[in-house]
């Protein structure tokens, strides 16, 4: 069926595009078209200085929580850890972008109504000056101790004093102080991942993002704990696969398009193709263990 109005409009539009003046029945619509001719192309150029590819204060890896109660989680972070909230922004359609500086690290807190049924929790190894005081403050702010007495502050055989708590939103916090001299310093905020296979995840991170596997502890074939370096950040993982707990992480890189391609080649699945969004170029992938990585760089 021919839509005569659509045909006629296109003829008038074509005449205008060829240099005519808008007139007649479609004038109001053609006025809109005049303006549309000045629309920007949707390729915003990244800044050329590589030092600026990520915002100030951000490390290579930034954990992200996707929760239906982002505002309350930010309040909790302030109360429990003295975090500084960097922003709380409602987005159209009930979404929410937020963030907080926790110690030396940043935590992204996104979600809102759009997180219903799609929550992503985080598990974090957070280094503090005084584990016992930090534990008390977290409990007072509404956190619960994990694993009963095991989670209370104690010196651990692996060289740190630590306490394990869960916040009211399901995120795990391993509050720790290194008892030696070569461990992470106060303020470090390190994602703690739970892949089915730590060796497998390290191999993936090496192939996909040029990461570097570090210490792997445990018996032969049975990994208790492992870590890997990505840029200037560390990620840790529990490796026996008893718990699986996919998490979401931002990854600042110089070239998100390349990171996306490499990740797919290394066995990841695509969540979102590279695109410009909120002043950044971002691409999303899911690693073979369900963790979501958002490779990104700023455009401005």
């Amino acid at each position, binding site marked *: 069926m021919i839509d005569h109005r659509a045909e006629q409009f296109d003829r008038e539009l074509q005449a205008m595009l060829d240099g005519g003046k808008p007139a007649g029945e479609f004038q109001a619509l053609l006025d809109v078209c005049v303006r549309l001719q000045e629309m920007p192309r949707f390729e*915003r150029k990244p800044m050329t200085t590589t030092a600026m590819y990520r915002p100030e204060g951000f490390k290579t890896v930034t954990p992200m929580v996707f929760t239906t109660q982002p505002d309350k989680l930010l309040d909790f972070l302030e109360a429990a850890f003295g975090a500084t909230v960097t922003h709380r922004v409602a987005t159209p359609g009930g979404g929410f972008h937020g963030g907080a500086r926790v110690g030396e690290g940043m935590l992204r807190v996104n979600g809102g109504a759009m997180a219903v049924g799609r929550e992503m929790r985080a598990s974090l190894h957070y280094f503090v000056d005084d584990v016992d005081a930090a534990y008390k403050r977290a409990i007072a702010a509404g956190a619960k101790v994990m694993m009963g007495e095991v989670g209370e502050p104690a010196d651990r055989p692996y060289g740190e004093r630590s306490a394990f708590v869960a916040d009211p939103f399901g995120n795990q916090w391993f509050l720790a102080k290194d008892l030696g001299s070569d461990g992470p310093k106060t303020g470090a905020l390190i994602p703690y991942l739970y892949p089915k296979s730590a060796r497998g995840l390290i191999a993936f991170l090496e192939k996909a993002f040029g990461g570097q596997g570090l210490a792997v502890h445990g018996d032969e074939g049975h990994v208790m704990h492992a870590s890997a370096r990505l840029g200037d950040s560390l990620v840790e993982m529990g490796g026996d696969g008893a718990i699986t707990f996919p998490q979401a992480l931002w990854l600042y890189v110089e070239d998100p398009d390349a990171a996306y391609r490499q990740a797919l080649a290394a066995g990841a699945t695509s969540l979102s193709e590279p695109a410009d969004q909120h002043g950044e170029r971002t691409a999303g992938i899911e690693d073979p263990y369900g963790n979501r990585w958002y490779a990104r760089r700023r455009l401005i």
Partner: protein
Amino acid sequence: MSVFANEHELVAAAQRDPAGFGPLYEANFYRVYAYLVRRTRDRQVAEDLAQEVFREALANIRKFEWRGLPFAAWLLRIASNAFADHWQRTKRETGIAIPKEPSFEETERSAMLFQLVERLPAAQQRVIEARFVEQKSIREIAMELDRSEGAVKQLQLRAIENLRAAMEVAK
């Protein structure tokens, strides 16, 4: 849920930590671009200058002070200076008078329209971009979308009608 997306909060967040600049960029990109494309009459130049403007704004965000004007006014002043510099660099020899400032309303209407295009249903948005940004013919778009030319013309008309209606509501 207390959410504050107002400008003061966004600016304060970006001043505390430039990482928070993204939402300000997002909220104002089309405004700055619309201003610049009106003055330069050149998409490429307007895009390049818009990037310059935001780079400069980001570098100076901590110096920004409220003086009773919206944040966009500060950005547009930077844009106006960027355009003047550009004109000096490129057109000084030609003797052509510098194009006059577009009105704030003009700039806002264009910025709003560009923003509205992003909210169109995907197929309509694609047709608008292909037609007006990439300057493709109806036939080319029909091939790309694997639809008849008649269907593309319908999408085109519906998209423009939607944009026009949304602009009227916003007025």
